[in-house]
């Protein structure tokens, strides 16, 4: 017989939220696993687990184009950490829109498709485009107007990467704070992302 469920009161709820370390993930630095936010992981130069350097560079450029602040908030580190855990543990929006695990395959195919298309259009990878070119590329991607596109459905790529960017910039306690929105008006966990 399983444990009897017990509803939590406000105080207990604060405690477990603190314990959960909202938005903190296990990153490996110097051979040691440390809980930190993706932005901290980026700032401290945490090596990527699965993404190659050029893939991470493209992801950061994509994230920053989709939502300013995503690069600094560690969008590439967030995705890299999330694709390295089991699908059941993953917190990616890709999970919700039925992307088939392992999720790294989706991201690799999306990144490759974008860099291939950017090179075909402008002779440069996405990260090397100027800001206007990057904006125009994303605008074409979301409308499925990339000529010769090879990769996952462009609309899905746009949706998932945009959601990832929103997650790291706004979907955290710090993100809510940046927008001036109380994260949880009645319960404020001590630990902030």
């Amino acid at each position, binding site marked *: *017989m*399983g*444990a*009897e*469920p*017990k*509803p*939590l*009161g*406000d105080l207990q*709820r604060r405690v*477990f*939220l603190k314990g*959960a370390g*909202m*938005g903190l993930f296990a990153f490996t630095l110097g051979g040691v696993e440390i809980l930190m936010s993706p932005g901290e992981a980026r700032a401290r130069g945490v090596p990527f687990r699965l993404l190659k350097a050029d893939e991470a560079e493209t992801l950061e450029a994509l994230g920053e*184009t*989709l*939502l*300013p*602040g995503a690069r600094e908030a560690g969008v590439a580190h967030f995705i890299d950490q999330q694709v390295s855990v*089991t*699908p*059941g*543990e*993953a*917190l*990616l*929006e890709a*999970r*919700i*829109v*039925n992307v*088939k*695990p392992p999720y790294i395959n989706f991201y690799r195919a999306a990144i490759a498709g974008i860099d291939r298309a950017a090179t075909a259009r402008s002779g440069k990878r996405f990260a090397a485009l100027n800001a206007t070119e990057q*904006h125009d590329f*994303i*605008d074409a991607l*979301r409308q499925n107007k990339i000529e010769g596109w090879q990769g996952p459905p462009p609309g899905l790529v*746009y*949706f998932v990467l*945009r*959601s990832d960017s*929103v*997650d790291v910039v*706004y*979907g*955290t306690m710090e*993100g*809510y704070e940046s*927008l*001036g*929105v*109380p994260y*949880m*008006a*009645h*319960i404020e966990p001590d630990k902030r992302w």
Partner: protein
Amino acid sequence: MATQQKMEEKVDVVIAGAGASGSTFAAVLAKAGKKVVLIDNGPDWQASDLISSDLWGRRIKPAGPPFILEGKQVAPIGYHGGWGVGGAALHWFANVPRLLPNDFKIKSEHNRAHDWPIAYEDVAPWYDKVAHDIGISGDAKAEELWRPAGRNYPMPPMKTFKNGEVWLKGFAANNIRMVPAAVAMNSTDFKGRPGCIYDGWCHVGCPIGALANPLVTYLGEARAAGAEVRAWSTVTRVLTDASGKKATGLEYVDRDGEKHIQPASVVICASWAAQNPRLLLNSSTDKHPNGLANSSGLVGKYIMTHFTAVTNAMFDDDLEPARGTIGGQFMSYERYSKTAHKGAFGSTLFAVGAAAKVSGLTGIHNSRPELFGADLAAFMKRAVRGYTRYTAACEEQPKIENRVELVSQKDEFGMPLAKITHNYDDNEMALWTANLDEGMKIGHATDAKEVWQVRTAMPAIHLMGGTIMGTDAGNSVVNSFGQTHEVPNLYVAGPGIFPTCGASNPTYTIFALSLRAAENLASNWGSIAG
């Protein structure tokens, strides 16, 4: 793939799935003294796992569900599905409108779709009983504008907030009466569970138990009465005897890959509208060559959804969109007649005043999916104060072409994956468009500065059908209790047994039908269990 097999001790009832329907059956039967085992494929979630975060809330939803989705408007799986103990009801929005009398007689009254084999009057007492079991807040008398009288809800309506109240002027101007939304949330303390604190995180699970998820309602009761839950265990087949007329138990694979046989006197498939057909189709024998309980060929057929027509608005005032609950503050059946909209057939239900957070699938950013970059950032700064929306939930008519079927590709347990094909037709498009058009009128009759809609895709929600109920094996898979026509001690529970779906959120009806069926089973145990 499992290579070993362990024979478990026989029990009275084995249930595949510990969500809304499975928990209800388990509570009734365990309290009736039956030995009950629930088998669920995911984690044994506890209240302390329900973290208030759109990111962390994704953990309680499927990851890589074993379904291949096809069609122009694919079936809703990822956001609406459940994974683990509690199922989708662990993160349901807890809106509890009920089906109305006209939902049960579409064939008789309009020569479309199907009649239910039962009438509203057969279900109404169970709606009332569920309300007092799990706790519902609302104003039942106010709802009697549109439905027959019944018991009052046990709690008064929830608080309302500006993000819902601002719509009332627009609805009134369009002669649409609104009443307090019925929600399975506590407006006051109820049965030892606290009242809601209106933090708007219901959709990722309510850890304080103010929202009636299975952990704090029927599943909690079932466990207290001795029911056992086996988490991380995936049911792969329903087993039958040599005659093919009696279910003998379930086969499942545990987390370590060990195969188990769980014998039981009664077997209940309560694994949601998508998985139940997959399970029955994968349980074929020489007596049931096309899948269990499938002589009609209807297992997997008539998959249905609701679709939503959402109207967004921006106000100058600070509406505090993130506050409140994910359920509605106000509701209306004013367009619930099947012919309410000229040129379109089907019911519409209005739900108004859901909290809107800044990320996640229902996040504010997705109200303007075309925005990115600096434009998105600027929009978000305004929208976190002035944004609100309402939803018109619309009824899809059952179509035999919308279906679940097995494919040759297999999962890690050696079980074939299932393909779900789902499309809307011109009628659904007409109903959607009519509601969007009316939504613009409603929006413009408020004090909103901007009103807009996203018309690029019809959002599908709530998966239903696939194992529909009817009068006999020629027109359906199960009877009104979910008992399969061909194997009397085998039940199917959940939204899959709906033969039509109305426009009302399904979970309240799932609870009511499950409670009705479980009490019938308990009362007739000897004749059914043998």
